[in-house]
């Protein structure tokens, strides 16, 4: 028997192993007030042991859920409210949150799917390179900053509510969609500085934006019928994941923002 040092609480959480119960290839982990490090270690251990689905119950703010986990057929269900940087650097798994999420969902994510049946915070999908993030509700500031595409990796984020400022800033690739279907935020669909510094990818908004809201690096277009048709499969998938009616979603014209140049700062400099 190994001696166990009892560690004191940290940041309001308990430093102890969570209780894990496994049935077939599904594991359930009770996260109630357990420090994130122990929760995430338990998740990694479950997957290493061959579990395919991990159900996290009583999640209350644990950070880094799904962070750095690789594997296409893996699934994490989050019941409760996950903490910051969920699915950061994730490479393949599906994370589904039955509640709201906080900041940094899908940060630098490579592949996989995140579905949040609620709202989420700031800096979602920062530097995201691939995979999908579906948020049902509202999102905060700096969402989709510097999303980028590479070869067959093309990140997609769809947000069902409204967004604050800096939506899609520095965007270098991928697709960022904002629908404004259900919102608890007052004010317009999206704040200012949309697509500022954008040099790749596209932003699609359900409805219209005023030119003052959009960065000077973007061209503003109304989506054509062909473009709307091309969006339908994605929106179908999104609507069936979060429970919207796709026909209602597509009942109003969409606005497309695309970069004017892949080299927005190409003519900025001179030298001796």
């Amino acid at each position, binding site marked *: 028997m190994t001696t166990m040092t009892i560690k004191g609480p940290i940041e309001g959480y308990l430093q102890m192993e969570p209780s894990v119960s496994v049935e077939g290839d599904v594991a359930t982990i009770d996260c109630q007030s357990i420090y994130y490090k122990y929760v995430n270690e338990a998740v990694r251990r479950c997957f290493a042991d061959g579990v395919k689905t991990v159900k996290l119950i009583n999640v209350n703010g644990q950070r880094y859920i799904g962070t750095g986990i690789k594997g296409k057929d893996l699934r994490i269900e989050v019941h409760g409210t996950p903490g910051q940087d969920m699915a950061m650097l994730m490479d393949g798994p599906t994370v589904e949150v039955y509640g709201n999420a906080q900041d940094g969902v899908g940060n630098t994510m490579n592949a996989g799917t995140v579905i949040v049946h609620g709202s989420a915070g700031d800096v979602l999908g920062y530097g995201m390179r691939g995979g999908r993030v579906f948020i049902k509700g509202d999102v905060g500031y700096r969402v989709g900053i510097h999303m980028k595409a590479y070869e067959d990796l093309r990140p997609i984020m769809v947000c069902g509510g409204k967004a604050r400022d800096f939506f899609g800033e520095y965007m270098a690739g991928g697709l960022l969609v904002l629908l404004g279907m259900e919102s608890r935020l007052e004010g317009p669909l999206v704040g200012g500085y949309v697509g500022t510094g954008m040099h790749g990818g596209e932003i699609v908004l359900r409805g219209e934006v005023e030119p003052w809201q959009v960065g000077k690096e973007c061209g503003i277009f109304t989506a054509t019928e062909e473009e709307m048709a091309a969006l339908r499969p994605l929106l179908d998938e999104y609507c069936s994941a979060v429970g919207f009616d796709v026909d209602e979603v597509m009942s109003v014209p969409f606005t497309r923002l695309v970069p004017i140049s892949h080299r927005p700062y190409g003519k900025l*400099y001179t030298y001796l």
Partner: protein
Amino acid sequence: MPTSLLQPEFRVDIDYNKCHKCGRCVQQCGWGVYNFNERPIPDDSKCRACHRCVTYCPAHCITIRKNDLALRENANWTAGLRKAVWRQAETGGVMLTGMGNDKPYLNIFDHLVLDACQVTNPSIDPLREPMELRTYLGRKPDSVEVVPDGNGGVRLAEGAGIANNIKLDTPLIFSPMSYGSVSLNVHKSLAMAAERCGILMNTGEGGLHADLYPYQDHVIVQVASGRFGVNPEYLQRGAAIEIKVGQGAKPGIGGHLPGEKINKEVSTTRMIPQGSDAISPAPHHDIYSIEDLRQLIYSLKEASGYKPVGVKIAAVHNVAAIASGIVRAGADYVYLDGFKGGTGAAPQVIRDHIGIPIEIAIAVVDQRLRDEGIRNQASIVAAGSIRSSADMAKALALGADVVAIGSAALMALGCHMCQGCHTGCCSWGLTTQKPELTRRVDPEWGAERLTNLVHAWSHELQEILGALGVNAVESLRGSRERLRAIGLDAQTCEIIGVKPAGM
């Protein structure tokens, strides 16, 4: 009207009596200075004085001179300021430049001298006696446990102490230079040399090329605001992970690697499309506070299996308080980059006017961490114009654990400091992605030269330690009593904790 008021900075003089008319200068010049019409004809305006042609001319018939056009003397309006005004009036552009700050600021290293033993204590001869340079990079424990060694003494208990530290054979590492800003052959040279010298190279923010995987235990992988090439595999390969917040040459601003430098290989390594600009935002948009930094440090630890994570910042006014926050956020090392540090490209106004000297930053950070009782929690890496083993020794005495070199490493590979890195035309094949230029650096040759440099400086450091009468670099670290200042004002002496010579 004249298209430009600017006259050539240099004159390329060819002694045609000696010239073989072989055309090698035409072939060697990356800037397109030469045309060949029965003999090489130089266009002075394109010359950057990088001496590639001079070095390769078999007849030694090329001389590069300053173009001595007399402008009326004016110590206030230097020629450089006048030229910049002319160029900006022509173009409306931001003045861009490469390498480090070239303005004649006071160099504090040059005003510090080291001590030596005389009479009252013996100096040590490192040629015949052991002289320890081994250095551990990372967090040290608050206390260590020891167990009896069976011979009446004690030894460190298993797992106590420095388990998660990186062992360096000498307190010198290579500073981050991204693949994209420098060529792959430069990266290979650095990685091979790092392995041979038992030290580290640093990817910079441009990802880790697959050719460097064999050297990954000697590679720090960097995570910057653009997150280029960053995925879980990248983090797991590195010996350590570094969050780049700032760079001494351009504190507070991001980077733009121009689309023309993004060829297929660079695009694969950075995981971005070919030909489009690689834009690093000025801040990390997930770090707006020390708490956010802590969040990123621990997310990288989670994703990498708890590798050491360092944080690189430019030395700026409140560097001590910032470094304290970084250590408290959980960084295993703090990398301080002084305002003379180099760059592949930076706006000149930023490079030359923002930040503080590395000497001051080392001293105030070391002191602040000591005062707060957290100095053991992180190593200090110091960079930003470490030009010699003397600078290295002085930096260590001021309180650094390790120094990092970038410009000196490039010079070992042929750089002549022409400050044209941003043009992408480096004739020495260093800061370019043009295949006809990059192939000029043979990684084996490069690794040997870098290894020579590291060994030479390490040996010189041993000589300095011997003169100081200590037998381990650990005894010099933070030992400012072994430094004296000559010609520094009293307040600077007080700030860096060094007495004036004679005291």
